[in-house]
């Protein structure tokens, strides 16, 4: 690992706790970890606080403390006898994922991320159709219309407003001329305080209506004869207004967080929004900006894609990669007894625990992770960007941010432990 000076008093920390990967944070340490964080971000503060306050209880075997040596030996035994190991969670950094893939290749494992359901809502759209997309800086500097689908982006990506939607400065699209259109069940939700003064256009629509809204917009912009009135009075008027704004915008951006689209086959709805942006490019410019990257999902997916040729939900059981986003969902593999060993890697969030199940389990966990149900082996690992350096991908899949080390408390990285296991497994 390359090193950075472990220090909390850094001016520009990179935050690994959400897909925006903000790298302008500074911590004011206090008696109990963090006094304050600047700029303000509840999510980053919580992530750093939990990481810094965590007191590792060391390696455990079936709940009992054991030496690292014993824990590693047991892990090797479990891996050697496994016929169908499942590598899941995968909330780690680039090198953690590289080591995971090498181990999975060696053992014949299947790979899935704990955010797999959300992630594949987007990936399936790319696999089936492709899309026209942009990155955070493009949206920030160029978008004169941003359509935000859903109400939860602001909780999942707290600084989306000041970093992208309403930045202090923008190269080509000053704040004054920007249209923000917010589609979602806003009637039952409160707009984020940061947006109140700006008075964005809100379209009140339940998630079950989002497909129809997108379809209606595509039909209207394609001059096909549809009756927007079928959406209901207020929403119909809003859709007509939005169609006009989209047609007139120089560069529109459509954004969502796939984690919010929790209904089955939500990829069909996303496909419609992506198709709308694609259609718009016939006459103007438009892009999608899907928000993701939490729990390192983009990170592990990117590494898996270049190393296997496929995204996650890929199996290496047959000696070569086979991908199937529906058959290799980790929850299903556990439920239908297709896996016989769970290797759960989760180093960013103590609450991202392995699912309760009867499978023998090895956990490479956040040092603060407390399991309700004890597992065969628990190996505490460092938090990337806190305990060790690393790399994390941002939401837009292009930027890999270097993560620095803040403290030294002797916690190994997931990559280090996984590579140790690899060496011990032999050929």
């Amino acid at each position, binding site marked *: 690992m390359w090193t950075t000076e472990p220090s909390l008093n850094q001016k520009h920390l990179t935050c690994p706790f959400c897909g925006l990967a903000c790298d302008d944070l500074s911590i004011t340490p206090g008696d109990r970890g963090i006094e304050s964080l600047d700029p303000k971000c509840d999510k980053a503060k919580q992530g750093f606080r939990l990481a810094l306050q965590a007191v590792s209880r060391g390696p455990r075997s079936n709940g009992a403390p054991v030496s690292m040596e014993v824990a590693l030996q047991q892990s090797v035994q479990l891996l050697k006898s496994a016929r169908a190991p499942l590598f899941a969670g995968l909330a780690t950094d680039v090198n953690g994922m590289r080591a995971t893939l090498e181990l999975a290749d060696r053992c014949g494992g299947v790979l899935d991320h704990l955010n797999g359901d959300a992630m594949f809502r987007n990936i399936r759209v790319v696999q089936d159709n492709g899309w*026209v997309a942009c990155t955070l800086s493009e949206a920030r500097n160029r978008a004169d219309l941003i359509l935000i689908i859903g109400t939860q982006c602001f909780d999942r990506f707290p600084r989306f407003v000041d970093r992208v939607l309403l930045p202090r400065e923008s190269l080509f699209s000053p704040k004054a001329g920007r249209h923000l259109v917010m589609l979602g069940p806003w009637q039952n939700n409160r707009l984020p305080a940061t947006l109140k003064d700006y008075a964005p256009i809100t379209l009140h629509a339940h998630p079950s209506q989002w497909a129809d809204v997108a379809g209606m917009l595509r039909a209207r912009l394609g001059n096909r004869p549809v009756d927007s009135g079928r959406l209901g009075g207020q929403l119909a008027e809003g859709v007509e207004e939005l169609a006009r704004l989209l047609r007139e915008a120089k560069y529109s951006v459509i954004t969502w967080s796939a984690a919010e689209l929790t209904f089955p086959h939500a990829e069909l709805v996303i496909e419609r929004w992506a198709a709308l942006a694609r259609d718009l490019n016939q006459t103007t410019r438009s892009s999608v900006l899907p928000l993701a990257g939490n729990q390192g999902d983009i990170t592990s997916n990117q590494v898996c894609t270049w190393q296997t040729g496929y*995204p996650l939900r890929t199996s290496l059981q047959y000696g070569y990669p086979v991908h199937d986003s529906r058959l290799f969902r980790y929850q299903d593999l556990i439920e239908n007894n297709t896996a016989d060993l769970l290797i759960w890697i989760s180093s960013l969030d103590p609450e991202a625990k392995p699912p309760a199940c009867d499978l023998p389990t090895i956990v490479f966990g956040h040092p603060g992770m407390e399991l309700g149900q004890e597992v065969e082996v628990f190996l505490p690992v460092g938090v990337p960007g806190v305990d060790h350096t690393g790399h994390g991908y941002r939401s837009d*899949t292009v*930027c890999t941010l270097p993560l620095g080390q803040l403290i030294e408390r002797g916690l190994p990285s997931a990559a280090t432990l996984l590579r140790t296991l690899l060496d011990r497994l032999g050929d």
Partner: protein
Amino acid sequence: MLIKLSGGTVYDPANGIDGRVMDLFIRDQHLVEPPADNEPIDQHYPLEGKVVMAGAIDLHTHIGGGKVNIARTLLPEQQPAYSRPRAGRMRSGSGGIAPSTHATGYRYAEMGYTTCFEPALLPVNARQAHMEMADTPLLDTGGYALLGNDEFLLQLIAEGAEQQTINDYVAWTLRASQCIGVKVVNPGGISAFKFNQRALDVDDVHPHYPISPRDILRTLSRALHQLGVPHPLHVHASNLGVPGNYLSTLATMDAAEGLPIHLTHIQFHSYGTEGDRKFSSCAAQIAEAVNRQANISIDVGQIMFGQTVTVSGDTMRQYANHGHAHPRKWLCMDIECEAGCGVVPFRYRDRNFVNALQWAIGLELFLLVDDPWRVFLTTDHPNGAPFTSYPHLIRLLMDRSFRNDMLARIHPDAGASSHLASLDREYSLNEIAIMTRAAPARLLGMTDYGHLAPGAVADLVVYHREGNPEQMFERPMLVFKRGEVVAREGAICASVNGSTHVVRPEYDQGIETRLAEWFARYHSMSLRNFGISDDEMADGIGSPVVIHPCASTSHP
């Protein structure tokens, strides 16, 4: 470890050796002078009747960075066509047209390639590109940083900034992104597309900045020259794929004003508008211009028939071509006010007039450019074809009757409108060695690579001498990477990791003040996280840097 290779027929054009039977010695990682008579030889390879060359160098192949991963994501149904099983410590992989990283490294090495360059490395995406290449075993790698559509540079040029300021920025970019060269793709055009402009010829004015592609080309080629960067500006010219674009290509050559310039995948830029279908070959005009101007080098970007995927920074042209996508899906991305990326799968058909003529145009260019030191063997992997088609391409160049057999199979009108049948030239082994080894090393300033003199890095290949060059180049007998045998008879037997090749011209660090302000105001990451340190390259990314010298800086 001292290795003796005896009796092989050596082709080492960098040292004027054209098929001489001689002994070579490798000590550890380098070629060395013959040892003293009494020194014991650890390994001896008798190579009588075999052909020995330096390891091959591909100076333009898309093997790293976001767009390849996007291609992999876009085409899950294409990937099973080539599955590579895990074998011992050798990793499994997949993908024929957008192979996984390990499969890429293994397959290249099996063909005798030991060094490859990613030609379109977005500085903001540099970490990913280097990570992917670090995971591409057996190859030394490097990248050309994309400039010329980044809003910072366009603004500098538009403001009339001093050349020195430009030079500082270019040098900083090379340093920050750990690159060996600079590439410009559709100068200004990717940016213009973001402003909804759909075409930008060499002398058109950008929709936002009062500058033209010519200004960008002149400024960047001058910067590289003045910085002493060995590799000249690597140019993907304006109007890729547009009939009649040979005029843009000639104008692009002209814009360098006599300074060195490399025009890449020039096959896609050599089109006229003659004939019933308003699509014709202008290979002769382009080759004539290249032959006349010694400052120009090219690589061809040969197409081969079959399924592939086009990956390019040129969103303007990729968007324009999306109607040709096969299968019908595609992706474009505007990236960080810096560049873009477009991925459009494509199937070239020999019975399609345009595709067939594209194939002929590429071969015409190979055969009409006289100096093998200035024309390079590429398919612009995977844009024209996957790199795995190189042995077939070499046969097309070396074997005229084979070439004519292939010509007879393509769309008859395309065959008839091409001069290919009348071109008798057959490349010699020495010329192949020039265009795939000696010349790329020289054009990149890699003094210890691409040749076999004592002191050179011991990347070398031993071939069986077959009647059929395709078989010969497909399955070399032995491939050495840094003195270690990594492939035998076309199969990998050991895996070593490569390094990243960079240049590092000096610059006034004052530019970073201005950049820091720009980043703080407009960018979504901070300047300090943009650049990659040598330690990060070696330990975090996994590919240590090898720094090649620049010429002593000349000032304007």
